């Protein structure tokens, strides 16, 4: 059993007030809060060993390099990658996806097909549309049902020898659906297609084993797992990372440079041009340490309890409808009250100190599917409590009375 009271002590921000009310932070799917343990690592870096990495011979540079590379190994172990050079530091999931999309420009041909799921974040749609524009490839969509589950039989029909790439999120940010990614990957491999899984929403809830999944690319952002913003990771199978051309040119990513020709550095540096987010990378490692010290099994169990409780309590509210009712989902609840705009509910909740997200959640195709302008989304983390859910429910009820 998690000691939530003790865990909450780790997060200084949870003690603050908003609009004169204790903060109830339920926007964890947008970004998670940062524990003191990670804040300490960030402060320690700037106070004690801030230096550029991989090039200085001096002690600070060496220390920073060691810590940064140790973080890479922590990430490698967390995701059970075969090699640490298969873990690339990026600025986050969006950067990772663009890196892969750009790399595939030279491997995709006119008439090839790329599949994306109907429940993608814009960051996992737009880069592929851009890739299709550059190459003449065709983007096809794996549809979903009303519950927010992918139609796997249609997926089978869409797969063919023309399919070169398949992209899907592990968990939908707008609906919370946990997608059957192992099946998606296996079936794509059956026709020789590569698969990228956007793990941004899954990372705080589930540990993905990239070898067991046999996934080609997997990406997450550190700020979803109690780490800082502006840093993330892209796992790529060695064979793919060797085939893909570099994304950006610059320092760090080269072996030799003359004006006639440049040879590129080995993995992972080939994809890490310029001075990286050193402190962010180190803090990312510390954030995974923190979450592992709590334990993902315990986290998943507790968050499931929160999800069930919140679902049950919210559904007691008159005219409230939940979008995303997949059998297999995480602690994200997207909802609307019939006749009320989600923005209005979000505004009232904000006045009550409750942080939720409103809008289309960067997933407009999902909103079009349900024919709604957006939803109110409450997303729960392991540091949230049932008491906070009660505050949410009474806040929504109050908003309903005011607005209807």
């Amino acid at each position, binding site marked *: 059993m998690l000691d939530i009271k003790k865990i909450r002590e780790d997060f200084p921000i949870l003690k603050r007030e908003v*609009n004169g009310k204790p903060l109830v932070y339920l926007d964890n799917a947008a970004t998670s809060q940062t524990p003191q343990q990670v804040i300490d690592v960030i402060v320690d870096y700037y106070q004690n060993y801030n230096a550029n990495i991989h090039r200085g011979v001096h002690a600070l540079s060496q220390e920073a390099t060691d810590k940064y590379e140790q973080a890479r190994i922590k990430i490698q172990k967390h995701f059970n990658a075969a090699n640490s050079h298969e873990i690339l530091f990026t600025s986050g999931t969006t950067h990772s996806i663009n890196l892969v999309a750009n790399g595939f420009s030279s491997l995709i041909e006119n008439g090839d097909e790329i599949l994306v799921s109907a429940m993608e974040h814009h960051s996992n749609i737009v880069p592929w549309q851009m890739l299709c524009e550059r190459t003449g490839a065709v983007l096809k969509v794996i549809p979903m049902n009303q519950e927010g589950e992918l139609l796997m039989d249609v997926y089978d029909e869409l797969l063919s020898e023309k399919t070169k790439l398949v992209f899907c999120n592990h968990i939908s940010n707008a609906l919370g659906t946990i997608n059957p990614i192992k099946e998606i990957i296996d079936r794509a491999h059956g026709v020789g297609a590569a698969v990228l899984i956007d793990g941004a929403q899954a990372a705080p809830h589930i540990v993905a084993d990239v070898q067991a999944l046999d996934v080609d690319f997997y990406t997450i952002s550190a700020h979803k797992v109690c780490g800082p913003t502006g840093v993330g990771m892209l796992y790529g199978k060695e064979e793919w990372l060797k085939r893909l051309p570099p994304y950006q040119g610059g320092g760090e990513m080269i072996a030799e440079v003359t004006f006639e020709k440049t040879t590129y550095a080995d993995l992972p540096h080939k994809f890490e041009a310029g001075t990286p987010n050193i402190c962010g990378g180190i803090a990312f490692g510390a954030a995974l340490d923190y979450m592992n010290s709590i334990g993902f099994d315990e986290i998943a169990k507790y968050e499931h309890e929160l999800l069930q409780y919140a679902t049950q309590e919210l559904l007691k509210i008159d005219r409230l409808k939940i979008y995303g009712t997949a059998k297999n989902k995480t602690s994200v609840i997207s909802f609307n009250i019939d006749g009320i*705009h989600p*923005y209005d509910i979000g*505004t009232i909740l904000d*006045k009550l100190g409750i942080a939720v997200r*409103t809008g289309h959640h960067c997933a407009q195709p999902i909103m079009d599917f349900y024919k709604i302008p957006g939803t109110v989304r409450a997303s729960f983390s392991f540091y949230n409590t049932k008491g906070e859910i009660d505050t949410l429910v009474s806040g929504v009820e109050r908003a309903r009375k005011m607005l209807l």
Partner: protein
Amino acid sequence: MEIKEIQDDIVDEFSMFDDWMQRYEYMIELGKSLPLIDEAYKTDDNIIKGCQSKVWVHAELQDNKLVFTADSDAIITKGIIAILIRAFSNQKPKDIIEANTNFIDEIGLKEHLSPTRANGLVSMIKQLKLYAVAYQTQVN
């Protein structure tokens, strides 16, 4: 009435409320009295960009004064645009261009004035003023 006088009236009305809830309830009421835009003008061209909810505004010149009508699919946003229209509608374009909007701050809606705020209050003010600039040339 001049814009400034109307703004002062609005500030007076809002000063009667003790807390945010009453202010918002009043704003919702004001939203219901918004002079609604003709359905024919509820086109994509008339949508104000930068709002999380949809806001449509139409302007037309009547006796050298600019008359605004509007609508929104969110009720709080409707209240905000109703307050703006009450202050700016039926006024000369020149006066609309020159009017300041400090009264928004005074009625306790300062938080909505941030340019990054998703309700687009800043975009609404900008749009009303742009209409005024556009129509000023047609005033006799």
